[in-house]
């Protein structure tokens, strides 16, 4: 039976809670209501209020309480109702959680789950991709799964990790994609990227929902004779620099793609990494396709113009292919 991206996260969370009594969920509306997106529907009935903690609208308290519980040896899984609201708990995450181990050797095993991304007409406060705020904070791990398999495997790895993990779930994927998942326990390692389509002529390096955009573009380009490789980063911290460089060495042309805005987006770091390590292999300038440096607009024509899509990727990739 096929499992959606949302069900995969839910299954992973459920199985970890069954496996380890120290795992519990905390967040807004996650109990009786089952969460804004219903990821935790049925959890309260099964696991009880002790392990499914409904909180006031207090992101700093959700993040802070998770830190306190993590320090005491529990494994909290906090839900930010929308990734956009994570800024309300920012200090707790970037100053408290991220720095405990380095400063005083304290483990803070906690996962912050955040539905991120646009394409659902959510407007400026329900569509953002805030991952880079955390990517540049040493001490945090950042995970952005693109498939149901990875979502399940990575949520399990995140829960078992002894460091704080930011887990970004692309909300446009929740019910849009599904696949058959193996039965039984499996995990996906944090920090490992994956080549999801092999190619020879150019590499598209991306993550999250844009993996599907890249695959769609690759399919179109294949008809034009271009063999496109697609690399799904899966984890932004730690970044799999080895696989990125390996792909560039193979194709010598690279297009960096993300839904996040341009300046300070991951593409800049990827471009620098490629330039520092495999510059000699490049046969063309590094190309970026990203959202522009604006807030995420609401109205459909504006949001469509804002979001990268296969058409925009194809256009840039075609130029790169012919370079």
């Amino acid at each position, binding site marked *: 039976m096929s499992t959606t991206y949302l069900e995969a996260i839910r299954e992973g969370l459920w199985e970890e809670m069954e496996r380890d009594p120290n795992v519990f969920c905390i967040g807004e509306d996650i109990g009786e209501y089952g969460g804004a997106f219903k990821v935790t529907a049925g959890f309260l009935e099964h696991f009880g209020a002790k392990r499914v903690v409904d909180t006031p609208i207090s992101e700093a308290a959700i993040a802070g309480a998770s830190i306190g519980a993590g320090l005491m040896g529990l494994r909290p899984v906090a839900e930010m109702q929308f990734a956009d609201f994570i800024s309300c708990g920012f200090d707790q995450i970037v100053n*408290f959680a991220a720095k405990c181990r380095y400063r005083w050797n304290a483990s803070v095993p906690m996962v912050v789950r955040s539905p991120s991304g646009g394409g659902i007409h959510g407007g400026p406060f329900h569509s953002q991709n805030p991952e880079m705020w955390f990517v540049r904070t040493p001490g945090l791990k950042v995970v952005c799964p693109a498939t149901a398999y990875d979502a399940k495997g990575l949520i399990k790895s995140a829960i078992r990790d002894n460091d704080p993990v930011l887990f970004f779930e692309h909300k446009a994927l929740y019910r849009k994609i599904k696949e058959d998942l193996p039965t039984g326990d499996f995990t996906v390692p944090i920090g490992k990227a994956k080549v999801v389509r092999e190619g020879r002529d150019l590499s598209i390096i991306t993550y999250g929902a844009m993996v599907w955009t890249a695959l769609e573009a690759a399919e179109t380009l294949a008809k034009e004779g271009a063999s496109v490789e697609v690399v799904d980063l899966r984890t932004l911290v730690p970044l799999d620099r080895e696989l990125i460089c390996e792909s560039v060495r193979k194709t010598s042309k690279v297009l960096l793609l993300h839904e996040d805005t341009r300046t300070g987006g991951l593409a800049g770091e990827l471009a620098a990494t490629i330039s520092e390590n495999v510059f000699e292999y490049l046969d063309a300038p590094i190309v970026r396709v990203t959202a522009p440096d604006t807030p995420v607009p609401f109205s459909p024509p504006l949001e469509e113009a804002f979001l990268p899509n296969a058409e925009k990727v194809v256009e840039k990739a075609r130029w790169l292919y012919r370079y």
Partner: protein
Amino acid sequence: MTAKDSAFAPLVYYPLNPKLEVNPMSAVEATGAETHSASTAAGSPQAELAHKCLYYMLLMREVEDRIERKLYRQGKVLGGVYVGRGQEAIPVGSALVAVPEDVMFPSHRDMAVFFIRGVSARRVLAQYMGRLGGLTRGRDGNMHMGDMSVNVVSIISALAATVPVAAGAALALRYKGIPGVAFSYFGDGSTSRGDWHEGVNFASVQKLPVVFICNNNQYAYSTPLNLQMACANVADRGPAYNMPAEIVDGNDVLAVYEATRRAVAHARGGQGPYLLECKTFRMTGHSAHDAAHYVPKGLFEEWGKLDPIVRIEKRLLDENWGTQEEIDELHAAVTREVDDAVAWAEQSPYPDASTLLDDVYESQ
């Protein structure tokens, strides 16, 4: 409970990173320091408590005096130095109530909490000097330190940030069925922060075992109370959270002790959090570089008369809990202990620059 006889309960906590070989000692591991037992006084439990209070207040005063008035001026302590001179009764009177299962969240003027949990003056001084012997091995300075093996959580500079973390620790205690209480320390200024209110509200809604201990020293850096809050007392904030709140003389260590016992009994009994406002006065500037010219004339003199150490010494004599000779000997013992601690800390090496990249993650 003294530093020496504390037998810490088998709480589940993560061991130190095995990668970290430079300084694998836990907070209470013997540094060889001769710690004064503070219980030489025969007699009533009250006499013993008074002696203990005096010892820890003297130790905190002496360590902080050395740091602020000597080592800082000699350039041996760098960075910000914030002391709790005149406010020692608050950490001492409260932390002496704690049992090993309790989780402490001392703020930046609560050094005595560390001593009471068994952390030696040697390690505290090494921490201030940026040495390997400090609890953070040079990664952080001053009171920014903690050790989960003795259930002490480190503050961060945005002080109120520990308040929701304390609520989370209390949640974990209840989750695990451990009858412990979280001791959450903060100043008057912290109560203006959003995360203070979020943490207190969450603790109240969940009826978590937290004792919120406010050191109201009437200044947040240079900002006086009337620019900090519109209510007269921090305790006035309690009723809004359906939380008992009590005002106590923060310069009377035995009063703080008794009030903390009431607060802890409430919290440990499953009745939810309790707010304790300890009224005191900051007898210094915000930090060592601040001359506090903004404090109206006369206030330091007025509050100086209420010094908690002078008061407990007078009480000790008045109640016949001890003699002047015993008090003098305690002063001398503390001086010796701190002399030794300074020497030990100065001999502790600086961290090697090659360790800069270690321990950002558990495995990296």
